[in-house]
């Protein structure tokens, strides 16, 4: 018997929540970005699971695009982190509070 597709979605949810907790809890910006990647992956799992359930491949095509965008976002995010490091000489997210009122 095959694994019912709902289990994949639960797994996706779990990974998503873990990634979210990671963003909140971590103090190094780089690790925050890593947690973001985790969240994107969970979404990928969900997409493919639905694909298989609905007998369509549009979900996989979307995963394709998510991969692309994730790569682009990682590149730019890391570039920003480099620039921020050069400015502030620090990667502690507690210190990066320019938006404080």
């Amino acid at each position, binding site marked *: 018997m095959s694994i019912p597709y709902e289990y994949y979605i639960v797994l996706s949810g779990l990974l998503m929540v873990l990634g*979210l*907790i990671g*963003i*909140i*809890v*971590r*103090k190094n910006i780089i690790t*925050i970005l890593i947690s973001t990647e985790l969240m994107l992956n969970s979404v990928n799992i969900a997409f493919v699971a639905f694909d298989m359930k609905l007998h369509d491949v549009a979900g996989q095509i979307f995963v394709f695009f998510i991969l692309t965008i994730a790569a682009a976002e990682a590149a730019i995010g890391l570039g920003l982190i480099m620039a921020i490091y050069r400015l502030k000489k620090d990667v502690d*997210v*507690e210190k*990066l*509070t*320019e*938006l*404080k*009122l």
Partner: protein
Amino acid sequence: MENLNYLWIIPFSPLIASIIIGIFGFKFLKEPLSGIVAVIGVAISAVAAVIGFLHVHEHGGHYDLKLFTWMPLGDYNISVSLFWDPLSALMSCVVTVISTFIFIFATGYMRGEPGYPRFFAYLSLFVFMMLMLTLSDNLVQLFFGWEGVGLVSYLLIGYYHNKRSAVNAAFESFIVNRVGDWSFLIGVLLAFVVFGTLDYLDIFAKLPEAGYWTITAIALLLFGGAVGKSAQIPLHIWLPNAMEGPTPVSALIHAATMVAAGVYMVARLMPIFASSSVALDTVLYIGTASAFVAATIGLVQNDIKRIIAYSTMSQLGYMFAAEGLGRFIDGMFHLTSHATFKALLFLAAGSVLIGVHHILNIWKMGQLRKYMPITAATFLVGALSLAGIPPFAGFFSKDPIIEAAFHINWVVWLFLWIGAGLTAFYIFRLYFLVFEDGDHLDPHIKKHVHESPWNMTLPLIVLATATVVLGFFREFFFEYLRPVLDPRAMPDTYAPEATKRLMEEGLSRAEHVHIPEDAIEFLIESLTSPLGILTLLTALGGIFAAYLIYQKQVISYKWLGETFKPLYNLFYNRWYFDHFYYAVFVRGYLKLSKYLWYVGDKLIIDGIVDGSGKLAVWTGHKLALTQTGRISAYVLQMLIAMAIFLGLFLLIK
């Protein structure tokens, strides 16, 4: 049926004159051309009115000519129309013929005034509005004319717009009139709701269907408008101040025509008023009260025009009293004769004012009979008529009212009788102080004073002649107006049987009064019956008393004033009506405004506006505490929100 379309000339001729003078007058029609255009305009109207009058006298009946539909209102159409029957014909003749003579007088009086064309434009416009009122066949056009005459009265009272007192008087007249108009309008609305139509004939036909109290309510509300327009108590305060306008205005508007519009309205709507004895009683009591109060005030005034103004108010009270007694034809006859002699008195006063260079205080005049004989003679004729001395018209129109009152309601008779005596007294006080032996005239003016030119004395002579002659047409009047104002002689097309029953009930109060209609008969009857002799003696007594006090100075008026000081103060301060209204309405309104300003504007509105601003700022400060700049915190908030909302959503589902 003949073609009566020529009757449309009557209202529209003065309108066209007014428009021509209004547009071209300032540039092209300098004096005296504007005056001539105005006179021609109203004279054409007068000729047409007289022709129509004779026509309807011969053939009787009533004609309803509709010009166009102004506004459809559900099933009913408000139309601009012309209703020609004996009553409206009479009123139109009175208005146009007297206007013609007053216009001729005004060309002389207003000589040298700046704004001469403006005056005649307004005056012609007034005649148009008044004719719209009298010729209307429905309540809406009546109201149009009603408001229109109020408007032009305002414009003309404030003619000397540089004088503060004139401007204030104009405002006062308009605002007080407005109170009456408000009552009138509610009456019109009520009539429309009840009857579904506003044409007179349709309302008369439907009268029996409405309840007694409904008809009473409508009648009282409409009478409220008449109280304002005809300066009866309690809306009379504007009339004396309206004397700020030029004297021809006072003569035309505030003596002969506009203030008579109230009387005309009650007569026109006689079926409505006659169907309710409460309404008739109200008309009676207010009329009597005004007649008496105005006569007492007129005793002690010192301004020549104001004395005549109070006498107008008093005589209007007599007219309303006549209508309230159920003697409508007497009221209309008194209206006609009053129009002639009151216009005469005002024009004579105007002639005097021109002669003494506009000094209004009668204590500064005297011996004018020597210098202005024609004016004095015509004024004397008018004064005798007002006092009710035969053979002048006033006697034939006023005394029947007093006699009828005796037979119907003796309290009313008492006040009207005393009022007649006071009337004779004060008008002759005026005559003796101004024209006879009071020598207070300023010597400088004495050198220049002279009789007025022909265009002012001619109308005086004509009106004086009319005053002498008119009284003897009493029987003619009764025959002429009977189809309109007597239910027994009304044609069925005017009011159906059921309505006539209602009217006869209301008019039954006057059933037992038999006053001779023929003038000579009436004269003989008054000279022989005790009541008639009493009335005549009262009038003569008033004249004699004035003679003693002011001419011969046998009794000193100063001593009289001292002895009756409280009464004197009461009369001189016009029964404190002005003070009362000022304290209650003006001060009260000011207090209310201040209160509203403080509570409404400052506390509430400013509070809301400023308060919302302050609230926004405070909320902003408090919310700013969440903006820490730490992304972890932001994402945490997002997580919490998501968890909560998703939970709520699932719970609700």
